[in-house]
């Protein structure tokens, strides 16, 4: 793993991103601002699952409206994040903060998959229900907490890299 990261970091693309005066900051700015689109829109869906916002809006409807934007933001984050990793693979790999960020990112992914493919199957019975089942609320709560962890350790990673 270590030598693979070394190889990635020292590749031509990795080196040119790292050493460019403008490319690295621009990619990082994209990474940070895409956060507003991805997690910034996803959080309203999570808060809806918790019953905090828009309690009158059917969950399936909000899902349809919000998810395309959250996914678009996530793709932007993933692409820009991959490029940032490419330029600093070795430092990231050896950083405890980055490992934690990655762990929480995977957990957030698992939480989303569990919701989409298991929890959501019974959506008919709680789509507009005033009392939201606990497993649905937990999916929203986990998503929020996991993303806070991803953002926090992402910020910490940046300090480790520089």
């Amino acid at each position: 793993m270590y030598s693979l990261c070394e190889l990635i970091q020292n590749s031509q693309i990795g080196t040119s991103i790292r050493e460019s005066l403008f490319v690295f900051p621009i990619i990082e700015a994209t990474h940070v601002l895409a956060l507003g689109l991805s997690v910034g829109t996803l959080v309203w869906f999570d808060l809806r699952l918790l019953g905090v916002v828009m309690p009158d809006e059917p969950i399936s409807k909000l899902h349809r409206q919000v998810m395309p934007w959250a996914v678009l933001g996530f793709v932007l984050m993933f692409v820009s994040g991959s490029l940032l990793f490419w330029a600093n693979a070795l430092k990231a790999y050896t950083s405890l903060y980055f490992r934690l960020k990655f762990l929480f990112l995977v957990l957030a992914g698992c939480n989303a998959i569990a919701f989409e493919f298991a929890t959501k199957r019974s959506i008919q019975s709680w789509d507009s229900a005033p009392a939201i089942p606990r497993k649905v609320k937990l999916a929203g709560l986990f998503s929020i907490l996991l993303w806070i962890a991803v953002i926090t350790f992402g910020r910490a990673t940046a300090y480790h890299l520089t």
Partner: protein
Amino acid sequence: MRSSLLPFFRWCDETFIAVAVRKSVIAFPTIETFHLLALTLLFGSIAMQNLRLCGFIMKEHPVSKVTKIFAPWTFWALMVMLSSGLLLFLSEAMKCYGSDPFWIKMGFLFLTVAFHFTIYRRITRTQDQPPTVLKARVAAAVSFTLWLGVGLAGRAIAFI
């Protein structure tokens, strides 16, 4: 004009808060994390309102209703950003003084907040009928551009 504010920046740099933040190893990163988490909420709530103004989401609800849901989040996220931003600024006031992106960010911030609480506010609270769609879309585009300017210039402070 900038140099006339130099004594003020010097004073900020020497306040006990600035000294305390500088002294601590974890204070700056911690405050910055709150700044970033609030940014997610601020940009996210603005994104929802702008997407509605453009007619991309929640079309069956009046703009004013969507605004009523998200505006309080925007406001409180902005408050967290301003207070955490103030602490970050104090701790490196002299660095900010010499940083062009900092001044550009403050310029954008002033314009954005002014636009948000006047023209944008009026459009999002009264624009219930669909007719003047163009006006709503222009407001969304201006809002998006201004907030983007604040964000980009802010990010640039760390690099330039």
